[in-house]
């Protein structure tokens, strides 16, 4: 029953699309090809805002899960476009975030919203925004 993801390219699935090279990637129109981690474009940011503990937690998760230098992960970093994280690696991150915060990141809903043009990837995958979404999910859980 379970087959490898390479068999998926013909799927009309909204969450994952296949790149020309056969690798699965985000169905987010502007797919960030793998191969070489890109450094955060905004790493020269001069004025650092106080970092939330949520951001610290997810930055540490990303650094550990994807072997990305921790100091290159900024609140302004875009997980896909700046850090070069693909959808499979992000599953590991989502799993770690789900466990760490006791929530369920609604990845499928987010992807659908982006594909429908109702949201931009920045709203969910720029890390300071991701932190805010996580805080909202944690708050909603406690409500």
């Amino acid at each position: 029953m379970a087959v490898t993801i390479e068999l998926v390219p013909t799927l009309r699935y909204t969450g994952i699309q296949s790149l020309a090279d056969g690798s699965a990637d985000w169905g987010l129109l502007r797919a960030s090809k793998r191969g070489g981690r890109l450094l955060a474009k905004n790493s020269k940011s001069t004025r650092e805002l106080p970092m939330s503990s949520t951001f610290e937690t997810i930055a540490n998760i990303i650094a550990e899960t994807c072997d990305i230098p921790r100091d290159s992960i900024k609140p302004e970093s875009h997980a896909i476009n700046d850090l070069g994280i693909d959808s499979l690696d992000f599953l590991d991150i989502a799993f770690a975030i789900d466990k760490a915060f006791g929530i369920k990141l609604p990845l499928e809903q987010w992807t659908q919203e982006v594909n429908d043009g109702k949201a931009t990837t920045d709203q969910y995958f720029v890390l300071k925004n991701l932190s805010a979404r996580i805080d909202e999910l944690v708050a909603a859980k406690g409500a």
Partner: protein
Amino acid sequence: MRLEYFQLIDRIVDLKIADRKISTEATVPGTSTIFEGHFPGFPLMPGVLLIEAMAQTSGWLIVASNGFARMAFLAAVKDAKFRMFVTPGQKLSVKAALTHEGSGYAITDASITLDDKSICDATLTLRILDFPNDEMKLRMREAAARVGFPAEVSANG
């Protein structure tokens, strides 16, 4: 097992959706062309096929959990360990436990035993997607019936 059809699982022995656990049975065939290459003069069940047996078992558990609404596709294999040789004719017990259900993916802990001896184990990640077409769903229902998938679960999807 019907290796030529990539059907690794013979039957579902126990399925407890509430407990998020499944147990299946898989008997290695006595003969197969696979053993001519793996290995000449020393037939062994390939480890990659043991992983597939764990993935298929995990897949049945996930499909049962979602009422046959969506399909599971193997996405990652972690911490796979092969502790003993498996040879033709051996009857294996395959178990999987659903340890996390995320949005569009699930994590299982899977293992294979032979007479209560540990053969192999791994942590699997499976993507959960809509069935890509009606034919696949139909064929998967047929495969489900073959392995003894509970009819009441299959009927819900």
